[in-house]
């Protein structure tokens, strides 16, 4: 699982790490596959992705081209179904019935069940071996808070994978985040890294130093 809505809220530093790693045959669960040559779009060009599960691959025209060439397998889900499938996966639910998609091509071959006189389609939960996500701040325990619409799929992905790696702007001491504002409690989070590749108004940039006060120690 890879967080983000396009490049917004995507763990760009971790994705870059993955592009430098010798892996292939990946199944990626993410709303999009980045943009052409950006974010997950780089992994696509490297042909490391065997299958992608998401809702809107249109944002990267190279996905359609790769699909036409038979280089990638795609599973398309309505965006709400994608989010809920991960929420269910993380909450120990095997699947759920939804009205979304009933009677459309996306419900073909899926179980339909009538509930209170209305047809619902069964959708299976999603889980992953690894989730790489983006948050704003973490404390040293792994509690996370998010920033504006960069939150998107990240909190549900944090719940639905065996290994959860969060990329953050800043790591603060435990106790510095208010218990009331924490969105993802630390039990969901396994590893933390500080972001070095970030999205700015000018596009994706590499920053030499992170926002940590003791940056010298981490950004050499």
């Amino acid at each position, binding site marked *: 699982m890879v967080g983000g*809505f*396009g490049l*917004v*809220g995507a763990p760009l530093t971790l994705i870059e790490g993955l592009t430098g790693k010798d892996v292939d045959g990946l199944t990626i669960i993410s*709303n999009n596959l980045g943009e052409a040559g950006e974010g997950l779009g780089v992994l696509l060009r490297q042909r490391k992705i065997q299958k992608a599960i998401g*809702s*809107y*691959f*249109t*944002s990267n025209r190279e*996905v*359609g081209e790769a*699909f*036409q060439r038979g280089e990638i397998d*795609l599973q*398309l*889900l*309505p*965006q*709400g*179904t*994608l*989010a*809920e499938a*991960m*929420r269910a996966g993380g909450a120990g639910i095997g699947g759920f019935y*939804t*009205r*979304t*998609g*009933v*009677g*459309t*091509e*996306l419900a073909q071959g899926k179980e339909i069940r009538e509930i209170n006189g209305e047809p619902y389609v069964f959708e299976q939960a999603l889980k992953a071996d690894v989730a790489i996500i983006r948050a704003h701040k973490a404390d040293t325990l792994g509690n996370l808070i*998010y*920033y*504006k*619409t*960069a*939150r*998107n*799929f*990240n*909190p*549900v992905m944090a719940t639905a994978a065996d290994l959860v790696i969060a990329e953050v702007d800043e790591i603060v001491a435990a106790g510095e985040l208010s218990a009331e504002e924490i*969105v993802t409690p630390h039990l969901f989070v396994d590893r933390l890294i500080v972001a070095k590749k970030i*999205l*700015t*108004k000018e596009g994706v940039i590499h920053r030499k130093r992170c926002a940590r006060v003791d940056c010298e120690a981490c950004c050499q």
Partner: protein
Amino acid sequence: MSSIENGVQELIARRAASELKGPSVVNLGIGIPTLVAKYVEDELIHFHTENGLLGVTEVEEEDPNLVNAGKLPVGERVGASFFSSAESFGMIRGGHIDVAILGALQVDETGRIANWAIPGKSIIGVGGAMDLLVGAKKVIVTTSHLTKDGNSKLMKTCTFPLTSTRSVDMIITELAVFTVVNEQLILTELMPGATLEQVRESTEADFVEGGFSS
């Protein structure tokens, strides 16, 4: 975009805005629907965007991490809140969104729409359209009346894959406003400068001529 096309879009957006009455929560789709917000002054209308914000407003200072579902920069109004995609679509499917304004590629004569896929091309994106059609209490479609090739977008049956089996509630084009009652299109209004003859010629779908005003 030509200035004529631009003018048509603004005309449709302004008409759609006049349908909104506070207090209500409104989700705006990509394209013409996004333009609707600037014609709304009612403080009791709150805009929702499915990528996780209730309280969308005009952008003041551009922030790359504060965007709408079309990935365009937006602002957050007083009393705004952020939430995850799962919670956001819970709001949509759960019936907590009063009005959704969406674009369409085709509309059939029962008011069902196709707006996510084109036959013969790879089907690679659906986004939140299916969820909004299922969950929003009222759905308004804003679209140009004709395709670029001059064919009616209001057809007897959609040739593109349907987005939902649910009929929308209202269709606003640059020529006319239709309401959908019992899966039947009813012409309720002619847009400024449009004639009944023009609407008849430009509409493939059967419709009932209601007691409309022009």
